[in-house]
């Protein structure tokens, strides 16, 4: 390799690295420039830092493997030699050189349900144990003792006793927060289940009527439509998976539109502009079909002479943008605002449903964007991230884990 190429490559790497670090440093600086502060402030920072580190590890509950790390941070926080955390199930985690104290801790923990406040227990003298007192404080969640913080010390200093009590109270609060996280995940999942779009009764009624009208005049077409109906319902009723691909969703929309066209005839026109690389995008199950149904029912059904629906999908940065547009009756913008804001009537329930599911799954920036006015048609825009390694089109629970990043206890 000759010298100029070499210099090119070297400068390239050097500039690249410098620029990246420069940006990172600037970012850091912009976010957290502060003066160093006095000793008292240092102590506060240190305490808060240890507390926040321990908080991370406590979120999984007292029976998770992370408790050991939390014990280390709490020991540093209290400045003691040996700290044990006992849970109600009899598990004991000891941090520091304290294996000899395990049975003492176990005997204290065995009586935890009788304890309501911090107590000091003398440790029976035995060779190798240099601590003579155990300070035990109960961890109380939901009015029940869920565990204990036990500190071993050589003297019964009042500040340490008080600090131990405070730490136990703080651990209780963290555990409650952890439970809150878990119940929030469960709630989010339940909400998603409830929100999973259902086939509207209106549509079933119309489709069956349309099929009935063909049974005598055009039996083969009626048969075809029944099969489409079967395809559509099988897709919509499927039980597994909260995610699907754009391609599959489009297939279901195809069945849906065939059934609607049996009723509308040529009054319903459909245009598609789908960039092929977007077809494998993972989207929430039934997030597009309700938008198309909304366009048919509220946009075109009310309009004389039918109309056109345009569905398009294309890459937009790191996202895929999917739009459903109709040239139908349109919606009053204030009504849409009220609808997506949570109030509003039973109309356009599909829109609201998709909007809240999108926000649930991807966060608030991924809500629906609706451009509409009375008589001016409706355009609904949906953004989906391209890369969703955590959202499996087959896995049932994947989304809740992806969003809340709960530790996975079943696998560990």
């Amino acid at each position: 390799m000759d010298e100029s190429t070499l210099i090119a490559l070297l400068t390239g790497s050097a500039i690249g690295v410098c620029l990246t670090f420069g940006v990172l440093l600037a970012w850091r600086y912009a976010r957290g420039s502060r003066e160093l502060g006095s000793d008292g402030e240092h102590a506060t920072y240190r305490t808060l830092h240890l507390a926040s580190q321990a908080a991370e590890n406590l979120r999984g509950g007292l029976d998770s493997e992370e408790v050991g790390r939390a014990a280390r941070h709490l020991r540093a926080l209290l400045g003691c030699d040996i700290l044990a955390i006992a849970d109600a199930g009899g598990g004991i985690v000891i941090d520091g050189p304290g294996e000899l104290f395990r049975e003492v801790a176990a005997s204290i923990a065995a009586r935890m349900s009788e304890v309501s406040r911090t107590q000091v227990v003398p440790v029976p003298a035995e060779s190798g144990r240099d601590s003579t007192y155990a300070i035990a404080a109960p961890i109380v969640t939901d009015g029940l003792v869920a565990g204990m913080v036990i500190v071993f010390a050589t003297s019964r200093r009042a500040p340490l006793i008080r600090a131990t009590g405070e730490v136990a109270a703080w651990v209780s609060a963290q555990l409650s927060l952890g439970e809150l996280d878990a119940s929030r995940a469960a709630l989010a999942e339940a909400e998603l289940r409830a929100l999973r779009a259902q086939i509207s009764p209106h549509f079933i009624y119309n489709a069956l009527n349309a099929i009935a009208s063909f049974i005598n005049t055009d039996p083969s077409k009626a048969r075809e439509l029944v099969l489409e109906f079967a395809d559509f319902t099988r897709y919509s009723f499927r039980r597994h998976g909260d995610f699907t691909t754009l391609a599959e969703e489009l297939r279901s929309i195809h069945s849906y539109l065939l059934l609607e066209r049996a009723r509308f005839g040529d009054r319903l026109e459909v245009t598609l502009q789908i960039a092929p690389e977007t077809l494998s995008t993972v989207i929430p199950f039934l997030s597009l079909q309700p938008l198309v149904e909304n366009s048919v029912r509220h946009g075109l059904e009310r309009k004389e002479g039918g109309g056109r629906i345009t569905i398009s999908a294309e890459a937009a940065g790191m996202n895929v943008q999917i739009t459903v547009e109709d040239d139908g009756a349109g919606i009053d913008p204030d009504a849409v605002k009220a609808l997506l804001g949570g109030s509003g009537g039973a109309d356009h329930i599909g829109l609201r449903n998709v909007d809240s599911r999108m926000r649930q799954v991807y966060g608030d920036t991924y809500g629906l964007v609706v451009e509409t006015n009375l008589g001016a048609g409706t355009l609904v825009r949906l953004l989906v991230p391209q890369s969703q390694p955590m959202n499996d089109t087959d896995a049932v629970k994947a989304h809740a884990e992806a969003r809340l990043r709960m530790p996975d206890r079943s696998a560990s």
Partner: protein
Amino acid sequence: MSAALAIAAIVLVLVATVVIGFYGLRISRTTDDLLVASRTVRPWMNASAISGEYLSAATFLGLAGLVLLSGTDAFWFPIGYSAGYLLLLLFVAAPLRRSGARTIPDFIEARLDSVGARRVTSLFVLIIGWLYIVPQFHGAAITVNVVTGLPPWVGSVAIAVIVGVIVAAGGMRSITFVQAFHYWLKLTAMGVPVVVLLLAVGTAPAAIDPALIFPRESGPGGQDLYRTASLVLALLLGTMGLPHVLVRFYTNPDGASARRTTVIVIVMISAFYMLSSTMGMIGRVFAPDLADPATADSVVLLLPSRLLPGLMGDLISALIVAGAFAAFLATSSGLVVSLAGVVSQDLLGGSVRAFRISAIACATVPLLVTFLTVPGGLANSVGFVFVVAASSLSPVLLLGVWWRGLTASGAVAGMIIGGVAAAFSLVVSGFGLVQHPIAVAAFDQPAAWTVPLAIATTVLVSLMTRRRVPARADRYISRLHAPER
């Protein structure tokens, strides 16, 4: 050579690219087309797109230049470039398609459950990507300078501005069609001139004796085993670590068609390399005076007007210029899209506006580097990028797909050690810091030891941090390897 014709060719390629990019989506008017549309692209179409993005300035101009410079040694480059897809096919194409991750950092984060490992991966993706864009800009500079006589910076600035604007304006709506178009354009722009030139020179006497042009010692018998093996290893493994290669496989509907696509890609790029190497050999016979590192890369551009005076030569030259611009555009826009994605997600929060800013930044940085450096040996500079990719990202990617015990610490250690070793070798060999022939060879072509070093580091550190294997590793790996339902 006619500058007007060449400029017209460039403008034509740009217009075609933009038109196909923005209006190329097939518009379907009936519901039945929904079924057709949802059936995704055919493997051959996707393969054209992948090949179109992959064939860069290094292969369009650089390969022929390298053949002119170093004879049959240069043939290892096309062999390595295309065989890299074989490894991709065998080991990572289908599993990564099933992973759901579109970029290497996304994959690493999901697989190792670590934001830290993701950041380090992003850094390497960024460095490798920038290093890969620089030769594209150099290629543009050479082309514009040779065919129009304008100063070289015009070419690099033009291509950087075009790519930056196209990507920042929201990319192209139908990038697959654009890239596929670029492949066929490049194939035509290399194939037609080769055939016409061969016809034209078929009976003409060679400028010098063929025995001098292809001396025995530069044939297969005279090659150094270590250097060749090391180079081929770098090219083989490097392909899968390139930032823009992975993302295209998602256009395939499933793992099986991802594999089929890869096979077609190998055929398609091999066809192109055959033509490009032939061009180099014609150059070696009829333009030996260009065999100098500073001018070798322009041989493809200069040959037609030398061998075919008059309008015919001008037209063929214009065709070649069009193909070359397609090569710069396709590769650098693919890279800028990938890099802008990484920057906007890791540094700026991932909004659409952030993506635009990142796109501009990712086109500007390599442009600045282009200004600071002199073009020389496009194929070799790309070869170095392959060494870095093969020593940093590829081992981690391979182990991530196939080894359950990989941990975040192992991946980070492996990437850093491998990357630093590759960069260190470049410094040592570039400044001639060692004299012993074995050491010179080891630092000239370092892949043979940097890749095992990176793999060993990754495995050792992972074993040392065995307790930190992510809890969901088993489930994620089974997802990578279980067939789709």
